[in-house]
């Protein structure tokens, strides 16, 4: 049988055999279904990607060509190809036309000049006047200021002004030359389209027809070349293990490092306050508007009441956070060494301030898995605690204001602990958590992330 005519399903095979299967090369509109979500056809996706980048590139190129033809080439011709002569100003006026946002104006100067014995007399100013609807702007004063620079050439003064005419069409003449600066700034828009479109298209085409592994290698090599980014520093031997440099940035007073908290209670309080104020002000404003709409307040009330209830909930949330912040003081956690090694021995210092009557306090080393996935157009993240090692537990005690509860303890990271791991969609995170059940609620939980490195020990074979 020739290759690839028939494949077989993937399954569990003995250790000395490889799992082998044939892959269809034909085009699929739909990808495989994964659980309850469809992953989409990679080929169709890449085709769509290529079309998207191509359209972006085309738009950029078209914009660039339009700008060149409309502004740059005419202005360049005026500066380099038009012939210099002199003219008389015989009349002037402000041209006006209706724009979308009101009237538009432009200076119009009637000049008289001679080319090869022929006298030309017409309305001119700059090269853009010769395009239909060209040279207009919203400022009448600007147009008047231009006109004021060109007094009429009366019979008494016979003043003459320099002007430039097109040798290919002497009917076209201008009184001013130069380049408009904004045109060059305008080029940044189509240029960015060209750069992004071309870059995306090249990237997509380079990946076209490549296997998933080949594409992954190309992406990895591109990241390695990114010497402006995080890869500029010395690469860690522990790939996909977070560096955790921010964890060791703060020295401790008793032990080596003071661990940072995942979420500061101060920020939670501030967030609750902002939400509470913004929401309730919005509801209050809505009520005021509703009161002005006399006669239609009935249905308006039906909308405002649920919003007001949410506002009340926000006030309760804020007061709860305020209570937590006021009663439960700072939790400080210091550690003797970091990052952690499986099997390694460490010392922990805990300081808990506040005025608390605690029913049950627990300090634990916790491992959580975090998985992110797309479901339709939504991105979802799920977190699951998979391991918990209780390091300390103390029931029924009180902490007085000004006398923080302090304790030190030794602990070891389990030998078989999985290391911290971080990839684009999956993470394994370790943290030391301090949790207290209070006699009077609310309870609290504070989490201090730590990094666990891969075990380097013997496999026990």
């Amino acid at each position, binding site marked *: 049988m020739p*290759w690839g005519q028939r494949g*077989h399903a993937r399954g569990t095979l003995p250790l000395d055999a*490889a799992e082998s299967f044939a892959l269809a090369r034909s085009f699929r509109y739909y990808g495989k279904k994964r659980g309850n979500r469809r992953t989409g056809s990679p080929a169709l996706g890449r085709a769509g990607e290529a079309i998207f980048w191509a359209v972006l590139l085309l738009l950029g190129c078209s914009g660039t060509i339009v700008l060149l033809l409309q502004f740059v080439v005419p202005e360049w011709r005026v500066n380099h190809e038009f012939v210099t002569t002199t003219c008389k100003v015989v009349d002037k006026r402000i041209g006006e036309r209706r724009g979308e946002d009101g009237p538009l104006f432009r200076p119009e100067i009637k000049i008289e000049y001679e080319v090869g014995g022929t006298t030309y007399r017409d309305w001119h100013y700059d090269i853009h006047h010769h395009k239909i609807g060209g040279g207009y702007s919203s400022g009448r004063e600007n147009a008047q200021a231009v006109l004021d620079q060109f007094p009429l050439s009366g019979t008494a003064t016979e003043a003459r002004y320099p002007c430039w005419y097109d040798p290919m069409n002497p009917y076209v003449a201008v009184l001013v030359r130069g380049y408009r600066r904004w045109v060059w700034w305008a080029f940044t828009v189509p240029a960015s389209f060209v750069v992004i479109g071309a870059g995306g298209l090249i990237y997509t085409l380079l990946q076209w027809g490549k296997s998933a592994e080949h594409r992954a290698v190309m992406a990895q090599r591109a990241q390695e070349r990114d010497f402006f980014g995080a890869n500029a520093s010395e690469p860690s*031997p522990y*790939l996909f293990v977070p560096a955790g440099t921010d964890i060791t940035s703060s020295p401790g007073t008793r032990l080596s490092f003071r661990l940072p908290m995942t979420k500061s209670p101060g920020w939670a309080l501030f967030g609750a306050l902002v939400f509470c104020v913004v929401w309730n002000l919005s509801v209050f404003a809505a009520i005021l508007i509703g009161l002005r709409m006399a006669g239609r307040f009935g249905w308006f009330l039906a909308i405002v009441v649920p919003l007001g209830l949410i506002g009340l909930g926000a006030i309760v949330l804020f007061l709860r956070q305020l209570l937590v912040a006021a009663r439960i003081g700072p939790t400080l956690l210091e550690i003797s060494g970091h990052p952690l090694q499986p099997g390694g021995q460490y010392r922990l210092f805990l300081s808990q301030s506040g005025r608390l009557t605690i029913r049950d306090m627990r300090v634990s080393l916790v491992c959580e898995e975090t998985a992110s996935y*797309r479901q339709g157009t939504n991105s979802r993240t799920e977190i699951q605690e998979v391991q918990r090692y209780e390091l300390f537990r103390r029931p029924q005690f009180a902490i007085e204001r000004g006398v923080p509860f302090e304790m030190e303890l030794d602990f070891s990271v389990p030998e078989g602990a*999985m*290391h911290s791991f971080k990839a684009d969609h999956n993470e394994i995170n370790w943290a030391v958590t301090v949790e207290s059940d209070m006699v009077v609620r609310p309870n609290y939980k504070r989490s201090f992330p730590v990094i666990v490195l891969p075990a*380097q020990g013997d496999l*026990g074979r």
Partner: protein
Amino acid sequence: MSAEPTVVIRLDGDGFVYRPGETLSGQYWIVSRDTSPVKAIEVSVLWHSEGKGDEDMAVHEFWQRDADELHPIDPGQPERFRTTLPQSPLSYEGQMIKLRWCVRVRAFPYRGKELVGERQFQLGNVPPVRVRSPA
């Protein structure tokens, strides 16, 4: 011999558990009744995730052999590969996340479907996460 073409990947050593930094070596070939040549073969040593989250994948080592008129590829001829395994990520059998290491061989025939063979191995010895019973 199987009627269907099969990729055979044989790993040296115990062929299953490897330490970080250890050398992984082995050989691969394709078993098929048909001896038609292939235009390219790719060999990758990689890890990928399985489970609830979208798939993450990184290739540790990648080799590509392209055939030309002077150097056709005989797919039945065993070819060796060798690499030093990295320190991480270690193989992991979690609750939502699984990290699997494998050697993957992908063969591209001149006509028809590509053929893929995969041989899993374990990097490190992290024990599987046991489901915790609710307190």
